């Protein structure tokens, strides 16, 4: 069966520090991968999605970046965090090409102080 791992669960980082959140998927090949951000009490904002290794589509201009160095690994990064980067970050995957549901990781709650 397929599983998705996202870590860490919580993170407190100072303003100006770098960020690296990692997400890995097991049990499937060539998945579509997604990074979403959810501000407190708000909706899910699509940040990045990827349909293959090295293929990243950015949805919102910001100081975040994403990379997909391996088929089932998706990384969200920042060189210098801003206060406004605080939020709940969710990684998700779905099967490629078809009309299928998305499966979410447990999320990372990031607080920038």
């Amino acid at each position, binding site marked *: 069966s397929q599983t998705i791992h996202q870590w860490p669960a919580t993170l407190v980082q100072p303003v100006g520090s770098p960020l690296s959140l990692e997400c890995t998927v097991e049990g499937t090949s060539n998945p579509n991968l997604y990074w979403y951000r959810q501000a407190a009490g708000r*909706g*899910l904002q699509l940040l990045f999605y990827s349909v293959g290794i090295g293929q990243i589509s950015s*949805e919102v201009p910001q100081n975040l970046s994403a990379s997909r160095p391996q088929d089932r690994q998706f990384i969200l990064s920042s060189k210098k965090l801003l206060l406004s980067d605080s939020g709940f970050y969710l990684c998700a995957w*779905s099967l*490629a090409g078809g*009309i299928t549901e998305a499966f979410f990781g447990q*999320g990372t709650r990031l607080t920038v102080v």
Partner: protein
Amino acid sequence: GQQVMQIPQYQHVQEGEDFTTYCNSSTTLSNIQWYKQRPGGHPVFLIQLVKSGEVKKQKRLTFQFGEAKKNSSLHITATQTTDVGTYFCAARIQGAQKLVFGQGTRLTINP
């Protein structure tokens, strides 16, 4: 910008009352999905609608997809405290690779 609009943003009901959330798009959708996020948790897939005018039921939950495939609704009959959470609609666009969510409707229930 947001391509799937969802209302209301919040809904508070008494236990036993019904609840409905609506999802609208300015463009025709190939499909619509619904997710539930419990407080502190991550979104979990509930159902997918594909056909024009489709209606699906899951116990007390009824999902509808509009005839023009531009709107959808989720109706919960006789809410229970276990229904608490945020309900999201989501649509696949741009060749089904991009999955965009509505703003969500947060449901709270007074027992």
